[in-house]
Every structure is written in structure tokens, then in C-alpha cells.
């Protein structure tokens, strides 16, 4: 296993392109080292991106934030401005593993590992985050939901890597939230999850929304119909207490549950996940609404 520490993104891309056999990017290593340990054939080349200065920083850009692909989630939690603008995304990154794991784990790694249960991804999809991809010749920007194509698979081509994730500028009266259900209270993998981002007008009416579901399909599901059900309302539909208990489910919650395509596994049955993802989406919408200043 050859280990390289390039100092520019282009150099990293060139190393990947020139590799004869399998090559892997190393960010925080919290997935990669576990995979190596569990018997994955060591790649011929490992490219550590933590020596590329631009990838190690969180920068303000056009009113939004550019998060370098090597920034650990702990650093996102310590960044005051980021947490204010995008509390849901920071919350989601703060749920990845333990304190120790967060000292290393990156959201770009979470995205590129392409686990359907990755915590930061539904929050980033709801946020409308854009991944900047760098290849040996050029850069391109694509929405994060276009990266994972299925469990463990991405749309990145040979020689390409994620350089940064961009979270756009927030209009006034916006809020986001992320919730997951895990069988334990800490250190577990989501059985279902939901990220919601909203913008309100001066009267508290929702004028923009994005809703993303995690762990209930081979990849994160962006539910446009659910967003439509919120837009134009003050979220009256999802406020009722009865909505928790089955018979009076809100339209929004039903739409989310209907969009889920979960599997049965040790963390939950299909029926359970389908129901829970609707509940989570409803609660996340309410939190996002309050954060946006709605009452």
C-alpha cells in the first residue's frame, strides 16, 4: 500500500488517475480503516487529503460556507457562524459516532462512503448543499444528492474527488433540522432519519422547503411532494398531536412515509421504518419552523 500526501487538490486527482490498481482517498479514515480491518483488500494507493490547506478549512463565501473535505465534524461544531446558519447540518455531523470519531470524521467522507444511513447526508440534501468535485483537469459543482448512487457507490469518475461542500447563503427567516431514530441513545446507526430545511415569509408562511429522508432506501430520498405540502402553509397540518398516533396522520407525514422504500433488517422492520420516518420528518419540520422564527 503506497501512502501519499499531496499538497494540492489537482495533485491528489492526478495521483488517483495515475493509479494502476484500486486507489482510495483518506480523509478521517473512520470508514476506511474499519473496512481495511474487516478484511478489505488494501488498495494499492492511499491518498491522504489532510495536507491540502484549502481542504482543511471552513470559509465564508458569497454569504454561505465552504467546508473543506478534510474538515472533521468536531470543527464544524466549534464554528459559531456555521452552527447559526445551518444548525441542522451541524447537528447531523455531530451525531456521527463518538467524540473520538468526530475528531476525524468528515462530512465529505460520510457522503462518499455512500452508506444509505449516513447521518450528515439527508441534512446536506435538505440544505441544498453542493459538492465541488475536482478532477485532474477541471472542477465541477454538483448537488450532494447526485453523489451516492447506491450503497457504497458514487457517481465520481476515476481521478475525481470531492474538494469541498458548499452550504448556500440563508435567506432571512430560514431554519433546518435533522432527526434520526437509533435503537440506542448514542453510537448507533440510523434506522430512519429526516432532514428538513424551510424558509418563511414575514407572516410565518412557508415559502420554500426541502425534505430528505435517510436509511429508508438505497440512497437518500429528496421528497419534493412533501416540500410542496409545506409550502404555502404555517405548518398547521403537521402541528396536531393526533398526527403522532396513526389515524389522523397529516398529508405531509403520509407523503413522507409513502416515499420511503426501506428494507427489513436488525435495526427495524419495513413497517416500523416507514412509520417512524414520517414521524421524524414531521418533528424535524416543526423544529426547522421554530428555528426559522415561526410560531
Amino acid at each position, binding site marked *: 500500500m503506497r501512502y501519499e500526501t499531496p499538497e494540492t487538490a489537482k495533485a491528489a486527482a492526478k495521483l488517483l488517475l495515475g493509479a494502476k490498481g484500486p486507489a482510495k482517498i483518506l480523509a478521517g479514515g473512520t470508514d476506511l*480503516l474499519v473496512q481495511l480491518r474487516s478484511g478489505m483488500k488494501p488498495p494499492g494507493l492511499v491518498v491522504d487529503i489532510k495536507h491540502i490547506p484549502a481542504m482543511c478549512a471552513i470559509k465564508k463565501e458569497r454569504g454561505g460556507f465552504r467546508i473543506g473535505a478534510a474538515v472533521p465534524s468536531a470543527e464544524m461544531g466549534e464554528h459559531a457562524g456555521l452552527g447559526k446558519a445551518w444548525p441542522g447540518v451541524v447537528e447531523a455531523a455531530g451525531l456521527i459516532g463518538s467524540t473520538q470519531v468526530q475528531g476525524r470524521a468528515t462530512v465529505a467522507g460520510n457522503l462518499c462512503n455512500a452508506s444509505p444511513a449516513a447521518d450528515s447526508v439527508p441534512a446536506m440534501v435538505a440544505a441544498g448543499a453542493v459538492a465541488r468535485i475536482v478532477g485532474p483537469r477541471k472542477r465541477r459543482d454538483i448537488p450532494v444528492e447526485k453523489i451516492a448512487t447506491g450503497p457504497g457507490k458514487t457517481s465520481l469518475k476515476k481521478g475525481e474527488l470531492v474538494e469541498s461542500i458548499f452550504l448556500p447563503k440563508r435567506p432571512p427567516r430560514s431554519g433546518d433540522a435533522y432527526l434520526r431514530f437509533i435503537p440506542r441513545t448514542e453510537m448507533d446507526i440510523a434506522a430512519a432519519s429526516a432532514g428538513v430545511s424551510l424558509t418563511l415569509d414575514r407572516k410565518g408562511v412557508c415559502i420554500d422547503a426541502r425534505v430528505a429522508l435517510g436509511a429508508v432506501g438505497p440512497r437518500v430520498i429528496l421528497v419534493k411532494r412533501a416540500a410542496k405540502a409545506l409550502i404555502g402553509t404555517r405548518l398547521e397540518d403537521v402541528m396536531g398531536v393526533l398526527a403522532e398516533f396513526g389515524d389522523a396522520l397529516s398529508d405531509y407525514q403520509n407523503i413522507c412515509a409513502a416515499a420511503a422504500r426501506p428494507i427489513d433488517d436488525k435495526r427495524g422492520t419495513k413497517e416500523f421504518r416507514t412509520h417512524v420516518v414520517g414521524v421524524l420528518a414531521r418533528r424535524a419540520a416543526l423544529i426547522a419552523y421554530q428555528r426559522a422564527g415561526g410560531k
Partner: protein
Amino acid sequence: MSSVAVSTTVNGDAVEVLCDTDETLLDVLRDRLDMTGTKEGCGTGDCGACSVMLDGRLVCSCLVLGVEAEGREVETIEGMAEGEKLHPLQQKFLEHAALQCGVCTPGFLVAAKALLEVNDDPSESEVRYWLAGNLCRCTGYDKIVRAVLDTAKDMRSA
């Protein structure tokens, strides 16, 4: 096998070590540097027994490659006491009987020290969440949590 010479700093001392590119920092510490205070519980990031500080951040050394330590600063449990003088956390762990078999203890100590460096007055739930990545099969955690809270209290009044 590709061996690489790595220059790093461990507990303030400059160290040169030859290691394979696929060896973890945990293996380098234990097998190459004979620093066996850092323990291996799982090797997959779940138990925290291998906790060390890397450039001031708490990490699992089983999830770091040895070669990644090049040019960086590593702090381990061996650097915690000053000679014979125990760190207050170590002293309190003894007083509270916060250890039995002791395999988890170095990890808990390193992790708890990192917590008190960023938060000198943690609540019980903050201690429990911070240490959620450190597993103990013996104590039931309560004595560990008491020891950490008690240390924080003493260190604040010191």
C-alpha cells in the same frame, strides 16, 4: 511491504520510527515503540480503549494510520502523570474505584482529560455524552462519571 520512516512527537519527545503503511498508530505505539499503555479493545473505533490526542484532538488510534503521525504531535496515557505524581484524574479514579480490570482506563483518562481541557464544569450528561465512545465492561460507568465530576470540581477550586 512498504516501510516508511516516520518522524513524530510523542508526549513531547521527538521519535523516529519505521512502520508499514497499513499499520495503525495504535500498533505503532504498542508494537514498535513499546508504549503499551494505550489499549486495543475492538480495533474498529467502537470502544475508545485506544484513545490518544493527535494535534490536540481526541481520536481513536486504531483509526489512524501510523504514517499519518508524520510531523504531528501524539499524546498518550504515558504522558499523563508527571514522574511519580499522578494527574488529578488518575488520583480520583483510584479514590472512586473507577476501574476494575483496567483495560478501558487509559482510554477513559485520556478522553476525560480532553473534556476538562475544553469544559472545566461539565454536567453529568455532558460527561456521559463525551465518554459515550468509551466502553467499560466492569464498572457500570457510574464511578467513572463520579470521578470525572469530582476531579473537575477540585480542579476548578485549585
